[in-house]
């Protein structure tokens, strides 16, 4: 699937520190409208740092390089501004927030975005109908709406909830951080269907994953291997299959590429 080729995300030579440690060390990546990119890599290679930095998670120092979103300096924007402009991060570990209703958060999130774009807020009826449809598509129970955010959810429910939020907010750039981890095969299929339903010409999706099994269901246009804080190899879907077969060791810095 391809879009009009407009770059949605352009990361140039990004170097990022967390505390004393340099996590991203010269990472470059261009993601165009309509594309799905998979970023794979061993644990500790910087995958979650990449999505975190792009979404605006605090605690990182950008040492050098840039990231632009639709031509704008993404790193200069507050996290909420990124969200309202259409960047969405599906968390690897979605937090539980007892006392904040799911439905309240969904409504606040959607209305913050609509207000930012000069659109009227949805009325309660329209909003509930929309949310119910999204819940149904993720095979989630409506009773979850009036529970605390992710409160008492199983791991799979949390991940489905992330994808449900994504489908409600319809981002231009979706960053999925290990959304497949901790899912059983049925939940993985539901999540994959949710992601596939989001594919479209105006949207870019970046999937960060350790294993290629999600990629059996969400077939990427591009696959990148992240190691030592930079992309060491890029290819098509066949690269993911090769990684599954050979592991990551052969790609580690200092190892001769085969």
């Amino acid at each position, binding site marked *: 699937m391809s879009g009009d080729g407009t770059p949605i995300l352009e990361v140039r030579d990004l170097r990022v520190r967390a505390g004393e440690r340099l996590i991203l060390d010269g990472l470059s990546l261009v993601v165009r409208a309509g594309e799905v990119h998979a970023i794979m890599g061993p644990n500790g290679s910087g995958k979650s740092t990449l999505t975190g930095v792009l979404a605006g998670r605090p605690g990182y120092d950008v040492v050098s390089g840039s990231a632009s979103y639709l031509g704008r300096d993404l790193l200069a924007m507050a996290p909420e501004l990124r969200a*309202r402009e259409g960047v969405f991060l599906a*968390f690897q570990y979605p937090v539980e927030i007892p006392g904040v209703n799911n439905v309240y958060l969904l409504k606040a999130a959607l209305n*913050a975005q609509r207000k930012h774009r000069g659109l009227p807020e949805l009325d309660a009826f329209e909003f509930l109908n929309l949310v119910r449809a999204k819940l149904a598509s993720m095979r989630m129970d409506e009773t979850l709406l009036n529970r605390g955010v992710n409160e008492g959810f199983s791991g799979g429910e949390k991940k489905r909830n992330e994808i449900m939020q994504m489908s409600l907010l319809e981002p231009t750039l979706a960053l999925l951080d290990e959304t497949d981890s901790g899912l059983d095969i049925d939940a993985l299929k539901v999540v994959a269907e949710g992601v596939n339903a989001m594919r479209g010409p105006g949207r870019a999706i970046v999937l960060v994953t350790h294993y290629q099994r999600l990629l059996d269901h969400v077939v990427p246009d591009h696959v990148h291997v992240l190691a030592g804080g930079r992309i060491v190899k890029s290819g098509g879907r066949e690269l993911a299959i090769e990684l599954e077969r050979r592991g990551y060791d052969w790609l580690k810095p200092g190892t001769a590429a085969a």
Partner: protein
Amino acid sequence: MSVPAPIERIAAAHARLAPRLAGGAAWARRRDAALGSLVARGLPDRRDENWKYLDHARIAEYAFDVEPAAPADPAAVAARLLEVAGAHRVVLVDGRYDARLSTMEARAGLEVVDLAALFERNPEAANSLLRRPGEKADDRYALLADAFAANGVLIRVAAGREPSGPVCLVHVATAATPAVHQARVVVDVAAGARCTLLEHFVALGDSAVLGNLAAELTLGEGASVSHLRLHQHGPEAAQVETWVVRTAARSRYEQHLMALGGRLLRSNLDLVLEGARAACKLDGLFLVDGERQADFLTQVTHRGPATETVQDYRGIATARGRGAFNGRITVEASAPGSNASQSSRNLLLSPLAEINARPQLEINVDDVQCRHGATLGTLDDEHVFYLRSRGLDEAAARSLLTFAFCRDLIGRMPLAPVRDAAEALVAGALTDRGPIRSAS
């Protein structure tokens, strides 16, 4: 020349005022005895372990020696009362029972008696009904209330009865000028009776009024009381209160303490689970912003066997707010098979805010299950980021998370108008005045 110490001003005010107070000779003798005892012992100060976090200097600024002005117009008071459907209303204006503003139905098994009238009619009965404060060091503000008490109120629920609606005990401070008010309240819920008791503290104006309440509640065997306490004073008002609760066998007492207003609140609870299988559930919340202070002392004693306490207290401090929770649960040797859990969770939202939490357990018998814990923390950064990543701005995210911290406590109160009022007060503190915003 410096201002005389409160105790000297109290003695001087007593000399002027006491002869004119209601209740006849019997009550006058009690008042004199209470004053004598108080003067001999003095008010608590920061050298007293259980009073060390309280802003005594601030309390000393209140007008202990000013004669109370005439109470405000009843219509102005009526306008501030919380609308609770079907409620029986008992109103204390500046510490005095006001029958005109009160509504109640005797048929409901409910009796409201003006203590002054009772003292005049039957001084012995009155004296035996009213606890004499002063045995404990922490009881000295109760002694102060006793020294000035007049026109207090006795509320009784007859055995086996349940009033048709909640009993609303409203404490209204009406003074337009600085003043100190003393109030005396006795609540007696007889065996097998049930009652929802709402106390609502409001101030008509912004003046520097200190209210001092000494109150006691007795639950008979198998009685059940749900006690809601909503503090919503004016910005310069202060309140000191001492509730003494005694519960007989198989009785159930629950309290919801919401300290959501006022310049300073000191709340003392002395609760003894006297009878076997008596149980209490204590929820408490303070939210201190600006330069406000809330200071809770709770002392729960398990005396009867198989008694139970569940205490869940929370505090939120922002700006220069100061909060203290000092909670002691004592399980006496006579209380095997008891259960006690005590939790104190606290949220500090500003570097200048302060919270002191001291949960304490003293266990004098085997075969009990007790646990306690205290936490003090800030909002979780990952929670804030999660909400921001969904498009909420930082101030909204912090307000929402702070609200979430206490929402279930508010939600556990049985009366919807009180829940709504408490939610509005919390939301107002978190958004209108913007302390959360400035905290980040």
